[in-house]
């Protein structure tokens, strides 16, 4: 049985505003999940709860592999929608630092150059300060660092939204390559991206998580069904 990640009865509110109410779901390893929801539905809040960046009122997160395991913050790789990289370092230095810190955990370690090649960052760019990097390049670095450690769970918050077409295709390809290593949940409000890249679609609507059954992912009727589900929130 493939490893599963379980969200159970999550409740989160900001002041009096309830954002997530008894949200539950089971995710399996080897698949890319699209977390689809309208702007402000609570996708980033859900990710922040999972990564222990914010507190929540109720709920549990755990893995089921051979046995039940509590989720630890170090199990989570979290790629933010606005990429965050230490801008006083070069890409090469950031990667060197990261590899040294996680030396004991990384299997089949490769050279820094090989890692950078994975996300198509050439040697010229590798030695530039990251404060001069474009949004897309910072995004690639953030993604790279998050996937090297092969976290059990990889959360991607709107990762492809502001990338150009080439960078977007490169990132999609990378995600497809690594999907067998982790449980990948990708939040987006772009339906076509969800349909193109992901194996399953999870709707975050009316404060709850619900599956969209994969009847026929190319069918226009299916798209319409998702839009209807999201509209019902109004």
């Amino acid at each position, binding site marked *: 049985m493939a490893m599963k990640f379980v969200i159970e009865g999550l409740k989160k509110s*900001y002041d009096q505003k309830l954002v997530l109410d008894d949200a539950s779901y089971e995710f399996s390893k080897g698949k890319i999940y699209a977390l689809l929801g309208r702007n402000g539905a609570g996708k980033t809040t859900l990710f922040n709860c999972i990564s222990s*960046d*914010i507190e929540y009122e109720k709920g549990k997160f755990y893995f089921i592999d051979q046995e039940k395991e509590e989720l630890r913050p170090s199990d989570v790789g*979290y790629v*933010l929608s606005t990429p965050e990289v*230490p801008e006083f*370092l070069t890409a090469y230095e950031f990667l060197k630092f990261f590899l040294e810190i*996680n030396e004991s955990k990384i299997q089949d370690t490769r050279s820094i150059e090989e890692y950078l090649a994975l996300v198509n960052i050439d040697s010229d760019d590798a030695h530039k*300060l990251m404060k001069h990097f474009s949004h897309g390049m910072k995004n690639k670095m953030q993604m790279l660092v998050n996937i090297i450690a092969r976290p059990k769970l990889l959360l991607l918050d709107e990762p492809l939204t502001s990338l150009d077409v080439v960078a977007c295709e490169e990132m999609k390809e990378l995600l497809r390559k690594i999907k067998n290593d982790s449980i990948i949940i990708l939040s987006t409000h772009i339906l076509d991206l969800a349909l193109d890249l992901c194996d399953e679609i999870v709707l975050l609507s009316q404060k709850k998580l619900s599956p969209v059954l994969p009847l026929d992912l190319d069918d226009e009727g299916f798209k319409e069904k998702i839009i209807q589900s999201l509209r019902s929130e109004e």
Partner: protein
Amino acid sequence: MKRTLSFTFKLQVAYGVNTTYYTLKSLPLLKKILPSSLYGALKLKRLCFIIYIIYSILAIFLSKIIYYLLFLYLPLRAYHTDLGATFLHIFFLLSLIGALINTNVFDLNMTNYYAINNFRLDAKEYIIISFVHGLVRMALGYLFLFAIFGYLYGLNAFYIIVIILGLISLKVMAAYFKLCYEEKINGKITAFLVLVFLSMAYLLPLRGYVMPNLIPLFFYVLLIISVYPFIMKLFNYRNYHLYAKRKLAKFKNGLDTNKGLNKILSERNISEDLTITSDQKGFAYLNDLFIKRHKKLLYQASKRQCIFILVLFGFVIALCVYLKEDLGELRAMILTYLPYFVFIMYSLNRGGEFCKCLFMNCDHSLLSYAFFKKPENLLKLFKLRLLELVKVNLYPALCISVGLSLLLVLCKDMHFLDHFIIYLTLISLSIFFSIHHLTLYYLLEPYNLEGIKSAGFIVISLFTYAICVFFMFLRYSNLVFGILISLFCILYCLFAYYLVYRFGPKTFKLKR
């Protein structure tokens, strides 16, 4: 003009009111009671508006009172010259320094950015209105100050009006030069002039030389008479829009990607020198590169402080040698005024800047990575950073210690203990403030990209400031004070380290 005036007022009030609400909302007790939805609640907005207006008015007067106490009242106690003439002598020279280094035509701040870039207000009207607003605040502040303390120095209503109009004229002229010749103004010449005026202000009265009242008043009248063409030039200046855009362009790229102003300004402190490397490993590698790439920000200020301190002590020593007076009084002063150095060491400490830079250029990004947030990693880095911060602050502390020690030698005080206590106290204080800043940073994580600090942090900072000011008025024997302060520092360090160890992993995280 009317539309710009009304909009400028509304914008500043809206920004001020929302900042007030944000500050109230981050106070420990109010945090849970006040919901975000109340940003739209009219009654609360009115309350915040009242608080903001009271704060704005108080700020005008408080800043002038602090200025008066620090730069006029306290130094005036040291002179034996005519009080009224000495007051005006120092005040006039300080006003020249203010014109040189404290004249802002258009600040880099978010309100100005919104006004010009987002709301597209007429740059000329907006800048003139803001500048006049600043002048009115300044005039009110001085009017208040002179109304209360003026009689002490024999300032009658006529003198007060002349001084205030003279100050306004001086600011107008300085604004004109800043607007038209900002790029050409030489920083070194400015610094030299500041030093000359500062020396004239505070050293001449020591030798009994002060300007007779008529001289400053004559200059103020001269300024008032000659200000008219400058006012016209300010009104007729055509390139306000370009001036504003040129200034805002310095951080335009950052703002395009929703970074805060402080983040953008902070990023400029990163050295572009790619020959900088490090042979350390892991967190030591990260810390080493951070320090090397921010050397200018961290060590340059410390270096400048050291030079200033050494020059100052050199000057005082030369003066003592030249005056050949009985130095017994000076020795007694050094030994009993040691508590005064609590405030000085607090003011010199670079901890605040260091922590802000750590957040903006390093921790803000790395705190989003799980590996960085691990408790053992946070503590590893805390230790490395503490060592570095202690080092940065130690140089000025050592310079002051050496200076005081040399003065004691000049006073023929060769008691080892007297010298030892000075070194012990100043070094302890320097270490204490370094730990204090870093501990607060780890326990409260007070920054965000806009640089707005948490209310808890502001309260503790004000409290620390008040205590340091309180120490200025304490007189203790150096031995008792030195031992007490060193013991306190050791205990505080242990306690702070425990707090960071115990709570840091929970508290040191991004505020989302």
